Structures are given as structure tokens and as C-alpha cells.
């Protein structure tokens, strides 16, 4: 088993499948009388969040607690980081406190990789800059597998702000390892040149959403990062929504079985209309529930045994 989970590329097909299979067993715990397992009793998981996050942090916290680990939440706001402590010094502090795993979210791409060199415990990347977010990719893959029954051979369209999306990067890496075919869709300004070839051979790029929809099993809408809207990546929110937003008529062009995903938080009316987001085809709420199961699986497989 791997020691850290930093990138979607850390996982080969067997390991990724093992995580998804384990997550399926972990999901059963949510329906039980006692929603707790003793597997990580006495282990300490630190959530080290340098960026705002609700669902990812809560999801990791719930996952660690369901496995009986002790959880310490550390957010940069109101901490020693606000006083200017470096990432390395913070890491050494956590190390001294005996953290068995550090779940880190950081605005700088690559921060978790650096952290992995400084601490003895396992490091889980919970999102670094515009780089990667591997547990999101795992929960997306889990959701696709449980809705559609398989991953190999699926056509997945990842639509929107690929340039700034760590979700997109991790998904391309993981999904291509698991045999799905990914097409990146969005305005040319938001899809880096050569990204498809750089991430995974076989990945396509298309600038026309309507051309991709009829042959897609999964449409994954990415959040348009509103804070970047003034950077002239596209002329206006309305134009973006008209060309790349998923609305009812567009959803009607999808095959019967196709599902619509979104990593959240959504901009309703921008990349996705409420009609689509609340339709039975949308897996958005499921993705949140599956996130806990998948993160339980990741924490168990990283910390459950003697893998040092």
C-alpha cells in the first residue's frame, strides 16, 4: 500500500480499485446502529487547512471519527500561521504532537509534496492550489461506478474552468488509470494548451459542449471561480452560461442513462441550472455522502496496518 496520497497519479488501477471496494464496505457503516469502527483507535489525524473549506474538512473529520481516530482541526486563520509561521515549522509542530496522518489543503500547488518530506506520518492531499485533489477524484469515480456499474469504457466530459481546477486534474489522472475516456470541455482560455497530452494520453479536448453531450455517460461540471471572472477569461457570465452552462434542454441531449456531477459548491444559474442540479440525474448530494466513505477507505488503507 502507498504511504501518502498526494496525486491521482499515485494510484495504479489495483490500488484505486481496492480503495473503491473498501469504500463500498465503509458505506455500509452509515446505515448501522453504531456508525463507528474501531480500526484506527489511538491514531491521530490532523486536518491542516490553509484554505477555506466546508465539505472536504467536515468529510475528512467525519471519516476519521467513524474509524475512531482522534481528530485535530487546524485552520490557518487564527493560528500561529497568522503570526507568520512557515509550513515547515507547522509541520514539525504536528510531528512533535505525534500526528499519524496529516490531511492538508493549501493554496500553493505542491505544498503537500513538501510536507510529505518533513513528517513521518502519512500525508493526504485535500487540495493544493490549482494542482490536485485526489480524494475528490476517488469519490467521483466511486459515484460513477455505483451509478453506472463500471468505469472502464465510460465517456466522461469534464466541463468548465479546467485551468484552475484541481478536481479536473486529479479526475483525468485517476479516470484514465481506471479505463474511462475523459474529454475536457470549456472555452479555449480556460483549457491549458497541451494539458490533455501532459496529464494522460487518450484525453481529448473539445471547445463545443453540445458536440460532446450525446456521447457522454458522465458530465462533470466544474465550478466557475467567480473571483476570477474579471480576469477576462470569458466576456461575461451570461455568455459563459449560454455556451458552457448545463440547462434542461442540454441535459435532454444526454443519453438516457447519463449522470450529471458537480464537486460543489455550485453557482446555480452559472455552470448549472437549478433544474439540472435538482434532477434525478444529478449525483451532487450522493457525491457528498460518498466522500465520507471514500475518505474512510483512504485513511484505513494508509493508517490501518503496519505499512511503515
Amino acid at each position, binding site marked *: *500500500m502507498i504511504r501518502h496520497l498526494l496525486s491521482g497519479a499515485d494510484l495504479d488501477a489495483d490500488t484505486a480499485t*481496492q480503495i473503491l*471496494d*473498501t469504500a*463500498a*464496505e*465503509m458505506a*455500509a457503516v452509515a446505515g*448501522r*446502529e*453504531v456508525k*463507528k*469502527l*474501531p*480500526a484506527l483507535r489511538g491514531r491521530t489525524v490532523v486536518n491542516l487547512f490553509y484554505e477555506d473549506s466546508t465539505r472536504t474538512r467536515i468529510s475528512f473529520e467525519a471519516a476519521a471519527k467513524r*474509524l475512531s481516530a482522534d481528530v485535530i482541526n487546524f485552520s490557518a486563520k487564527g493560528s500561529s500561521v497568522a503570526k507568520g509561521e512557515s509550513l515547515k515549522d507547522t509541520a514539525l509542530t504536528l510531528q512533535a504532537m505525534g500526528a499519524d496522518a496529516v490531511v492538508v489543503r493549501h493554496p500553493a500547488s505542491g505544498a503537500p509534496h513538501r510536507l510529505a518530506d518533513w513528517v513521518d506520518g502519512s500525508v493526504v492531499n485535500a487540495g493544493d492550489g490549482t494542482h490536485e485533489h485526489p480524494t475528490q477524484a476517488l469519490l467521483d469515480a466511486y459515484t460513477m461506478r455505483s451509478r453506472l456499474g463500471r468505469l472502464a469504457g465510460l465517456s466522461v466530459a469534464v466541463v468548465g474552468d479546467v485551468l484552475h481546477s484541481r478536481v479536473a486534474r486529479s479526475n483525468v489522472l485517476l479516470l484514465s488509470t481506471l479505463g474511462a475516456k475523459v474529454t475536457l470541455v470549456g472555452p479555449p482560455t480556460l483549457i491549458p494548451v497541451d494539458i490533455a497530452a501532459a496529464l494522460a494520453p487518450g484525453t481529448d479536448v473539445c471547445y463545443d459542449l453540445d458536440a460532446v453531450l450525446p456521447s457522454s455517460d458522465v458530465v462533470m461540471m466544474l465550478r466557475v471561480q467567480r473571483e476570477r471572472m474579471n480576469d477576462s477569461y470569458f466576456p461575461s457570465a451570461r455568455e459563459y452560461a449560454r455556451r458552457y452552462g448545463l440547462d434542461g434542454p442540454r441535459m435532454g441531449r444526454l443519453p438516457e442513462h447519463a449522470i450529471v456531477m458537480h464537486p460543489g459548491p455550485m453557482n446555480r444559474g452559472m455552470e448549472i441550472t437549478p433544474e439540472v442540479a435538482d434532477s434525478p440525474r444529478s449525483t451532487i448530494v450522493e457525491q457528498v455522502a460518498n466522500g465520507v466513505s471514500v475518505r474512510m477507505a483512504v485513511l*484505513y*488503507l494508509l493508517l*490501518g*496496518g*503496519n*505499512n511503515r
Partner: protein
Amino acid sequence: MAYPSAAPSSPPRQPSVKVILTSADLQRVVDRIAHQILEKTQGAADTVLLGIPTRGAPLASRLAARISAFEGISVPVGVLDITLYRDDLRRNATRAVGPTQLPAGGIDGKRVVLVDDVLFSGRTVRAALDALGDLGRPASVQLAVLVDRGHRQLPIRADYVGKNIPTALAESVKVTLVETDGTDEVRLYGEEAR
């Protein structure tokens, strides 16, 4: 010119393997345990059989099939994976988690019979009892094993035992079943075969 041959090497030691139960023996033992369960539970009312993977699961199904053949009643069968409740998780590489399947009626208020192939240290059963406690509240819990080989490390005993096999600690008992291994047999391996 021929070199003088070296001292004759001792013949390769055959690992000592002893068949304890043949396929026919195993069937008879399962039949007997099925009868004992019926006897001790007054007809297996409100009884649930839970097999502990790997080989407890097919054994539980076989017991249910035999009980059904003898008395025409169907006893609910389930599978109880105890991986996450083991006390040696940290001493080994991460173990794969298997499925736990409880019968539709659940286990609350039922008489649960845990089924496993070999009873040894008792630690598996301890883990199974902990797992049961998190899944519900059975009225009572019993234990059925194909083989009891002794060397208990915890105060645990079986209610139904297929065969008691006195063993040395260094020996090992291996149960194979058609469902999991292709053949029905119980074998005792000597120390050197491990």
C-alpha cells in the same frame, strides 16, 4: 576421474501432513452440528447463522441447507466480516475489508450462531463479538466451529464443535472447502511444513 562422492545427503524431509477429516467425514460433521443446533435451539426458531469469512461463510450456508433438509425450515444466513475489529491490525500490512451481509430480519433479539472453520486463540471470536455489538443487540450468541485445535488466549469456548484436534502450537490446521478451495478436507501440518 571421479571425485569421491560427498556424504550421502539425508533424504528430503517430507512435511508431515495428516488428513483429519475427509470429504465424507466433513459432511457428517456438518450434519451433526446442524442436528445439534436444532436440538439446542428447540427447532432453530429466531435463529440466525452468521459465517465469519473466509470459510465460516460457506459453512454457515451449508448448516442452513442441512437444517432446511432435516426440518424444512429456513434459517437466515449472513456474513460477518471482522477485519476492522481485529486486535492485530497494526502488526500486519493493511488487510482488505470484506463484505458484511446481515439477513433481512437483522439480528436484534435473535439467537445468533457464529460459524467459523477453526477455533484457535479465540481472538477472531472476540472481534466478532465486538462487531456484533455494533450491528445490533442479539438475544444470545453461540459459536459453532468445524475444528477446535486448542491454545485459547481468551476465555472463549464453542457451543458446537465438529472435531477437537489436540495440536502443538507450532502445527497448523488447514480447512479447505469446495466453495473456496475446490475440495473438502481438514489437514494437520507438522512444524516443518509451515
